[in-house]
């Protein structure tokens, strides 16, 4: 079956404006009688809940955290893109649109991406008005920096804590709506299932994480803003509690999961140091503005470094292989993430890696320190500065730009990155796939919306840096609050829902039985150990490079793992108090099922595009080889149960405004 994205008619640049001007509205007196459930309080959820509250809807908002401010958006470092063209460097809405479509390797929907680029400008204004302290120039105006995959400077940032500051802005707006009584906030409540009545999403079952109590919450519609599923790999840069449960429960209720195999491996993360490791830490992509990526040219030097006989500083410049600069001269160290990650993998696979594990490359700031030092000396009127002076001045500039990142690196690794190049390696960071949504951000289930990383919509097969914050806030502040009216305008005669119905009762009972099921296995292996094993399978066979044989093997392994999980997992503690192990158990169970679907999706897509690299499909130079004739579609999967194959629904992608080209950053 082919899916309709409900893209409005008209020219690309006018679609959104025209649609917005003609769409159905809900009158203020009716909004007060309409209840909206928002699950998740990251950038997308908090901004949506706050804005819907401002508009007059009755909002109930849920987070499993102890406070809405904790959501993982808070950890985003580098920045947020917007087509402001404040730098006068040729940026425009069209260029941001084009870069995003190209960066996504032509696997996203044109109309959605153009709308994203349009509203990007409003986001910056809104954040500034909320008190987000973006970086500024001496003239008092907003500063910008560059990010990977683009040739303009359009990224706004707040030191290395842009996500934190944007989330606090949204959290504060949300807090204001809570105090005004427009939003009812449920902290420490986890969504366990969607409740459907007559084919529409009409509520959720939530679990109070302190008491274990299951609750029924009814509403006219449900908005999921529950983030991505990167933790399916166990080790990722996601926070420990980030999970797929809300999205996966929706999938099990019939929502389609789109492009699940499109995962982003971020090139600059601190390498894994041991088996005890619980998560990986990102080093912002902004570092690639000034850091140069290299490995030794010879395997002998690499081996000497791996064995601790040499350090980076022992390798003369001529013996260093700056592989991104050499292979991609046009973009150099600022190639998109998928390209940079694969290049690091190739270097390490060739035996040129630099950590004891052989799985690391250098990110070196020596050149930047020298360049900034000379420039600083010049502007201070210091003539003929010596090398020590240049280094000192240069380090001060680098500290001002990236100080907190350097500090974090040193805390984790115990090494000083001003003196010794950073060691980095790719790690799972973001998931472009997610719940399928149409132009209104509505899933195929009427009344069920998905926003932010939780949906699949804007990034195609690869997301550009500093675009996740942009999309989360675009959806929450400027898109959903309008498009939700297309559904709700037909609901003004629907009275508020009673949760004492057979549908709610059945849903609650199913959740209760599922949780009891986990407790009653009383096996011998911890939840964590299963999660770790799942992560290894996913990383090995469905990670940076995939092939049909490996994927088939992975599918079998995941099936075996699931069987073992339900036979031998051990969940300590009880059901009626705070029990993080029980929370993990149902989340890992969902990750296992999603993992299988990711593998199925990766097997189906017989091409390489963006973050999905099938080893069978590559150019002679080893770059991703798309198959536009056969795979220019969104794969939206209908889950039909564990023992049957999922059903593929295709949304054909049509490109009316850009020409499909082989992506080149050379």
């Amino acid at each position, binding site marked *: 079956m082919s899916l309709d994205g409900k893209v409005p008619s008209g020219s690309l640049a006018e679609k959104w404006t025209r649609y917005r001007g003609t769409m159905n509205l809900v009158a203020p007196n009716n909004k007060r009688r309409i209840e909206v459930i928002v699950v998740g309080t990251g950038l997308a959820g908090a*901004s949506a809940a706050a804005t819907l509250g401002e508009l007059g809807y009755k909002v109930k908002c849920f987070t499993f955290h102890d406070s809405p401010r904790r959501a993982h958006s808070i950890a985003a470092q580098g920045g947020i893109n917007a087509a402001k063209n404040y730098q006068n460097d040729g940026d425009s809405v069209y260029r941001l649109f084009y870069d995003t479509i190209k960066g996504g390797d032509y696997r996203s929907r044109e109309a959605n991406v153009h709308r994203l680029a349009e509203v990007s400008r409003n986001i910056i204004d809104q*954040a500034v008005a909320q008190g987000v302290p973006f970086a500024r120039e001496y003239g008092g105006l907003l500063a910008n920096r560059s990010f990977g995959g683009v040739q303009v400077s359009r990224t706004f940032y707040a030191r290395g804590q842009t996500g934190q500051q944007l989330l606090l802005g949204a959290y504060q707006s949300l807090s204001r709506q809570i105090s005004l009584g427009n939003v009812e906030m449920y902290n420490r409540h986890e969504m366990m299932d969607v409740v459907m009545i007559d084919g529409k999403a009409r509520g959720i079952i939530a679990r109070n994480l302190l008491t274990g109590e299951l609750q029924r919450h009814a509403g006219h519609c449900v908005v999921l803003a529950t983030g991505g599923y990167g933790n399916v790999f166990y080790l990722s840069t996601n926070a420990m509690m980030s999970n797929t449960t809300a999205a996966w429960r929706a999938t099990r209720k019939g929502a389609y999961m789109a492009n699940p195999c499109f995962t982003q491996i971020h090139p600059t993360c601190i390498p894994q140091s041991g088996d005890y490791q619980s998560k990986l830490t990102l080093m912002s992509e902004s570092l690639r503005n000034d850091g140069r990526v290299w490995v030794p040219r010879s395997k002998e030097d690499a081996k000497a470094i791996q064995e601790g006989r040499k350090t980076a500083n022992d390798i003369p410049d001529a013996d260093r292989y700056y592989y991104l600069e050499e292979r991609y001269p046009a973009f150099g160290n600022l190639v998109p993430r998928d390209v940079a990650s694969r290049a690091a993998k190739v270097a390490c696979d060739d035996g040129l890696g630099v950590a004891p594990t052989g799985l690391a490359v250098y990110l070196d700031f020596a050149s930047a320190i020298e360049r900034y030092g000379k420039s600083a000396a010049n502007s201070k009127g210091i003539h003929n500065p010596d090398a020590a002076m240049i280094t000192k001045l240069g380090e001060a500039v680098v500290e001002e730009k990236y100080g907190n990142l350097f500090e974090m690196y040193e805390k984790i690794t115990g090494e000083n990155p001003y003196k010794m190049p950073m060691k980095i390696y790719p790690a799972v960071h973001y998931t472009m796939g997610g719940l399928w949504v149409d132009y209104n951000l509505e899933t195929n289930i009427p009344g069920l919306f998905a926003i932010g990383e939780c949906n699949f919509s804007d990034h195609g097969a690869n997301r550009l840096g500093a675009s996740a914050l942009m999309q989360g806030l675009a959806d929450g*502040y400027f898109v959903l609050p309008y498009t939700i009216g297309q559904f709700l305008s037909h609901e003004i005669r629907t009275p508020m829902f009673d949760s004492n119905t057979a549908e709610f009762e059945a849903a609650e009972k199913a959740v209760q039985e599922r949780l009891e099921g986990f407790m009653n296995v009383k096996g011998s292996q911890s939840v964590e150990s299963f999660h770790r094993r799942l992560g290894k399978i996913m990383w090995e066979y469905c990670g940076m490079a995939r092939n049909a044989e490996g994927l088939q093997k992975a599918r079998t392994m995941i099936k075996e793992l699931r069987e073992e999980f339900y036979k031998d997992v051990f969940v300590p503690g009880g059901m009626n108090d705070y029990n993080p192990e029980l929370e993990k158990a149902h989340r890992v169970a969902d990750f296992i099922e999603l993992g299988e679907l990711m593998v199925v999706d990766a097997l189906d897509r017989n091409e390489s595009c963006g973050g999905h690299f099938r080893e069978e499909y590559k150019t002679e130079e080893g770059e991703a080889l798309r198959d536009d004739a056969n795979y220019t579609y969104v794969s939206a999967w209908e889950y039909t149960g564990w023992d049957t194959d999922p059903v593929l629904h295709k949304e054909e992608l049509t490109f009316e405004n850009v020409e499909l080209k082989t992506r080149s950053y050379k």
Partner: protein
Amino acid sequence: MKLTLKIWRQKSPKDKGRFETYQVEANPHMSFLEMLDVLNEELISKKEEPVAFEHDCREGICGTCGLVIDGQPHGPSQGTTTCQLHMRHYKDGDTIVIEPYRGSAFPVFKDLAVDRSAFDRIIQAGGYISVNTGQAQDGNAIPIEKEQSARAFDAAACIGCGACVAACPNASAMLFVSAKASHLALLPQGEVESKRRAQAMVKQMDLEGFGMCSNVTACEAECPKEISVENIARLNREFLSSTLGTEVKVG
């Protein structure tokens, strides 16, 4: 490295609680929380209940973690959250005492996990700028001096972990409250309602049962984001000048 851990165990808010002693084998590259993960895996393998502690990002930014380690919130390293503390700061044979934050405004609900929802209610009382979505003017319409913006950022860096309260002998929340009030008051967008904000936030802080600030400055010393007590002085000025006028209606 072999370590002895003395950990506070408390089944529920009503339970009296007690210290339990555990032995754990750690590695210097581990983070403090990964060391606790190892302990918990061992407890689970013995069918015992793991130690409950809160954590999420493990990058020092979400503010979820916060243990009192040998009497210091977030442990011995300056400007470091518990999750960013690494075991290389300890040596073989060390004994480490691990407790939850103490204080009536942060009740313990299990082992090392406490309820910090009072902080949310303080922000809800006034820790925001009253602007609706869509009301903003162009981001560059009001220039803000670079240094001023940087000062606002320094205050805005607060992660809401509550270490300031845990460090204070009076369990005062003044550093947290003043950081948010300063962040917003220092910016032209937030200055407009700064007096009302200061009054509303301080009133809520008092209602939550936090203690009085007596200028001990332990909060600044233990703050993982090194938020300055200058913010407290700034809040006091805002508060004083606001109370000299007519009382603003709060709530």
